[in-house]
């Protein structure tokens, strides 16, 4: 499955990339699977996405508050809690 991953603000800087379009290995079907896969990169990925760290996830531009099944070409964004206004 191919997805588009976007990173914003502090996470964009820490991950040193704003976006990537990985082909996910078979077996990665949910958001939780994807986050585990990203944590397995180690380093800042494991650190920033560790349990208890504050970050938000949007799938296709909607905030997601629980696990979700991923689909081909989904746009998945990871970012810190928002601070506008």
């Amino acid at each position, binding site marked *: 499955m191919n997805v588009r991953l976007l990173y914003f*603000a502090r996470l964009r800087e820490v991950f040193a990339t704003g976006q990537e379009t990985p082909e996910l290995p078979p077996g990665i079907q949910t958001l939780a699977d994807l986050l585990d896969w990203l944590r397995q990169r180690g380093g800042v990925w494991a650190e920033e996405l560790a349990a208890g760290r*504050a970050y*938000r996830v949007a799938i296709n531009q909607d905030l997601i508050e629980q696990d979700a099944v991923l689909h081909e070409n989904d746009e998945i964004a990871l970012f810190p*809690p*928002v601070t506008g206004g």
Partner: protein
Amino acid sequence: MKIAVQSEAFDLNAEVAALHQANPKVGAVVSFLGLVRDINEGQGVSTLSLEHYPGMTEKALAQIVEDARQRWEVLDATVIHRVGALQPTEPIVLVAVASGHRGDAFVACEFIMDYLKTRAPFWKKEATAEGEHWVDARESDDRAAARWGGSGK
């Protein structure tokens, strides 16, 4: 309804006038103007940089206005949020709500602002004499949004 994310300044008077001039049903317009302060947590801020998530930002703001319309009488509304580099004293956000009566206009304006602070994908980075840093989200903003029911996140 007007939703705009822009780097340029906006004209508060013109935006408020546009909400009521052509609609005699409007009896009240409440506007909120947010400004860049020069002091945040004890350090002088020289520049505030606003990053956002193009596409999602506009969608999230439109949804917040729609949520307000479901709860109160909102005849029209304008939300303008600036992005890019801003200096202290500059306007950063405008929320203006037109209604038949002041009660709905006041409460809908506050609701939109509270939800904007916790649901619209903007991030502030402050530059001070000590360097740059990302602004942390405030729990008080989550609590303000949670007052309205729902998670506020």
